[in-house]
């Protein structure tokens, strides 16, 4: 087993160019489980923790650029609570303090699990994933071209996820998830809701109810046109109908954590509540 401890972006990209089958190790919260259980015996590993270019964040005009190496502990605090509150809320629901201290948003994106908690927020924000390789330099891929299936993404073996770009949106955001217990809980259904008070739009991202994180276009269109944006209210029954449209957009499955019927129902409930909170 070869392990390369990259200390710069170029080192990491060179290592990947040399061996595109190399596995990347960021916080290790997904990766090390697989190594410990010998599901994966990678021949070579490139570790990313010491790549400074992946850490931190910056503003690019109206866009927030979040480095792939940012941890949940960083994301759940200021300034993100103000700037992307939905993402901060999602980060706060991940695992435990131990997991949040280690796990990164880049790892959540690259793993591409349908239950990944940041993903519904990212899709609701129309995030763009930034990839980079030694051969082709930077490549920006919109979320809907990036997530291809359960734990399948458009990332090539020689590419690194370097950052994710999300717009700074003026308006309220919510992330709600349902799980079976009160801490350390993997989402059985999750909803991110982003209100754009300037554009008068609502966008929802859904987690754990499909092979990839989903949007609910019909529900969004309904909300855009039904909300009274002057008073920030919705007519009676509007939130419920919004929830029903979100349920209809889901395509969940049965597994040992829950049933498809439950997930479909719960995602609608979360959506309705998220909307009600944003309008309260």
């Amino acid at each position, binding site marked *: 087993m*070869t*392990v390369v*401890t990259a200390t710069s972006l170029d080192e990491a990209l060179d290592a990947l160019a040399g061996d595109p089958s190399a596995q990347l190790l960021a916080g290790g919260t997904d990766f090390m*489980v697989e190594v410990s259980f010998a599901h994966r*015996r990678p021949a070579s590993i490139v570790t990313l923790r010491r790549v400074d270019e992946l850490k931190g964040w910056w503003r690019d005009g109206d866009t927030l650029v979040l480095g792939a190496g940012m941890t949940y502990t960083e994301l759940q605090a200021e300034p993100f609570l103000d700037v992307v509150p939905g993402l901060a809320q999602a980060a706060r629901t991940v695992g435990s*303090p*131990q997991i949040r201290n*280690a796990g990164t948003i880049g790892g959540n994106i690259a793993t591409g699990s349908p239950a990944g908690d940041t993903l519904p927020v990212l899709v609701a924000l129309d995030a763009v994933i930034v990839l980079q390789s030694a051969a082709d330099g930077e490549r920006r891929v919109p979320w809907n071209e990036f997530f291809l299936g359960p734990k399948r993404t458009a990332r090539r073996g020689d590419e690194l996820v370097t950052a994710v770009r999300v717009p700074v949106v003026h308006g309220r955001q919510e992330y709600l998830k349902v799980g*079976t217990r009160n801490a350390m809980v993997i989402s059985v259904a999750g909803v991110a809701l982003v209100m754009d008070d300037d554009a008068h739009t609502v966008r929802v991202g859904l987690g754990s109810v499909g092979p990839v994180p989903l949007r609910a276009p019909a529900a969004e269109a309904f909300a855009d046109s039904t909300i009274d944006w002057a008073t920030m209210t919705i007519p009676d029954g509007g939130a419920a109908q919004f929830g029903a449209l979100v349920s209809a957009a889901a395509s969940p499955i049965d597994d040992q954590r829950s049933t498809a019927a439950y997930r479909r129902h719960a995602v609608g409930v979360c959506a309705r509540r998220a909307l009600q909170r944003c309008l309260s």
Partner: protein
Amino acid sequence: MSNDVADGAAAVDGAVLRTVLVNGIAASFEAPPATVLTEVLREELGLTGTKVGCSAGDCGACTVMIDRAAVCACMVPVGRLAGTSITTVEGLTGDELGERLQASFLRHAAAQCGFCTPGVLMAARALLGTNRQPTRQQVMDGLGGVLCRCTGYQAIIAAVLDVDAADPVTVRPTSGKAVGASIERVDGRVKVAGTDVFGDDDAPDDALVIHVIRSPFARAAFTFCDLESFVSENDGITAVLTARDVPGVNRFGVIAPLADQPVFAEHETRFAGEAVAAVVVLPGFDFSSIEFPVVWAALNPLTSPALALHPAAELVHTDRPANVLVEGFVQTGDVDAVMPSCAAVASAEFDSPFVEHAYIEPEAGWAEVIDGLVVIHVTTQSAYMDRASMAEILGVAEHRVRIVPTAVGGGFGGKLDLSVQPFLALAALRTGQPVRITYSRAESMASTTKRHPSKLSVSIGADSNGRVTAMSFEGVFDTGAYASWGPTVANRVPIHASGPYFIPNYRAHSTAVHTNGPPSGAFRGFGVPQAAIAQETLFDELAGRLGIDRLEFRILNALTAGQRTVTGHVLEGGVGIRDCLEALRGPWADALTRAQSLNRANDRRHRSGIGVAGIWYGCGNTSLSNPSTIKVGVRSDGSVVLHQGAIDIGQGSNTVISQIVADAIGIEVHRVLLRSADTSITPDAGKTSASRQTYVSGMAAYLAGVSLRAKLLAMLDASFDSEFVFDAGVLRCHSDGVARSVDLRRLPVDADGFVVVAVESYDPPTTALDHNGQGTPYAVFGYGAQLIELSVDTATGRVQLHRVVAAYDVGKAINPQLVVGQIEGGIAQGIGLALLEEYLPGRTNNLHDYLIPTIGDVPPIETIIVETHDPVGPYGAKGVGEHSLIPTAPAILNAIHHACGIRIRSVPATPTKVLAAILKRGAA
């Protein structure tokens, strides 16, 4: 590219020398970069305080601080450590805040078995580092990533909140006053220091490592290929063991006549996870990429009792017709005559799944052979039973085997059966070298016993005054592939299924059925928790139909002294169920008002409800002899040493037995020096199960203490109520105004180093049950009742618990703080049974698919200790270990019904099930 070897840059498959800062000291070791930190801390640096419970981030037992932030050391590759500073539990010593935390944990008895404790302490220390005065909620958030299976978390929360206690009190009772005092656990300090020695903590460095090969199929035939060349062609492999290598009988079982479980399967495996072979390898050898030469042929398994009971079903054991292991039966009065005339009858069917003990410490141990004596250091609940089984398996006399129990990181019944012991002994004998084994979490979950899945069909009838007059109970228990404790469950359930109530006409029948599931064994309550769910929820239905308050209905029917139980046993005294239920009257009225006002205030989506359930539970084995022997002696220097073989699995027997013996002798408890269980030192105090240690071993300790006192005073020629002191090596007393003394240093010393010694045994007075189950199955019962307040989110089916009030009759609380700890821990497991836990063989062999309660899932618990003196137990005491778990699930189900009108009869009541029931009710 950085090629700096010291910080673990490019390194090919090699162990490189690294230096990291651990607890402020630079520590050097060699390891490949993907090695996890837990491995390095424990194996290279000898810092075994950091525990491993899952290797997957799920349990938090491995929590350490890296640069002051809590992380799971099991997920940290050492390659990333350069330039960081690591703090482990060992590093709390000398850290002012760390030591305060440890002291607070001791004061609050926040460590029971102590296996989670290092992780909890480190998570708490990290939290306090950023938030010096956290709120209760912040403590719960900060500690959400560490699982504790013993405490129910309340003592942990209290300990963290109380870290700055101004003037902490130490309880130090004077002589004769230990019983009833909440003294600190006698084994507490090592637990908070992280220095207690568990199964995986002290194997010699050169010990060979055992890997067990297990069946991936519920039922399979198998053949080995060439095992000899497998060994000779792999350099790191020392030996392979299979059924052929078992010198004695390849069978074990906790109930000797029914012993049926092979150490290694012989032709066919009967459950997924059953062992077929063991491979012994050199320390450090990477076995994970080795392909073991076995060919499997999957066979059709029997996956449920319904399939197994089908007349055409194949037999799991050819000598057990119809796949029935045993049946249990209790009958009194005439149910069939009375039931039809009842004013109200409630009937229903219930079911429950396999439930996993999920102690945080996986099975582990090590063994060596010294002069022909096989010495096995192992995490176990039953040293003497282990020794007897091992002697059979090895084909040697019992004195050739010594079991040295390590500290036990939780057991709950799951460490009563053999696990690693046979592999250790066989490998040590074969290789002549020390050997070790530690189960992975997956292996532990797949191969050890479970709570019996149940299918119950129950009817209960009452007259118009609300008196229960008839009950019938039919229960089928999935006992899995092997007998284990199946007979105990089948026998205990019919006796207990009435609950702690007077029911004159009663018939209960149970059947333990073999399937190709994991062996079902002992798990806190031996089947009674499942039965209580049926009886206590049907009691609610009856009360509802008769228009009687649910608590008053129970009080009306509660057993009282002088009444006959369903086995015809007339309890002379110590029947505390009515006292427990009456103690809940005040909290019940308050809770009812609270629920009603919440339901008025809340949106209709969140409904509040309350529920209650009562229990009784017989302490000790059912109608069988189960003696305990305790030895206590005085050495020539006047020190008093207790040889106490009641294994402390966290419940506190080391402490409680010390308290009892101290008062019986008449000395201060902190003068008692303890030798814990070891088959070469301590006499047999039976197994730690059936809530028997405080009662049975406690009685033996009491008798031994009294006997020692009598001997000492006889030597002084003083009367029994005289006071005496040890003045270094001289025993002195003033009696009748005369000063008397005996110089202990002049007395002959026995093999244990004693100059005076007392050994006493106690066996509960029980009788066999007749063909109708009539007789005296237990000498002592304990009683309890729980009240639960909760709310149901009717849109998601999520149940939130708000508060538990538990009233328990323990006869006499020898150590009230430990009693509270047992109750809180039992309630947490009851919550798991009610809401979360379902073990699916082959699918939930980890702690992220098999969910146990976290700190966020256990609400505040208020305990009311009721002391209805027992005429039999030591100082009037009864057991409480299992009693604590039993009422929680039915009380929760009753509260769910009260909240939103649905009856869940299949646990766990997951959001999925609760919501489905709510939607169904709405549609109806």
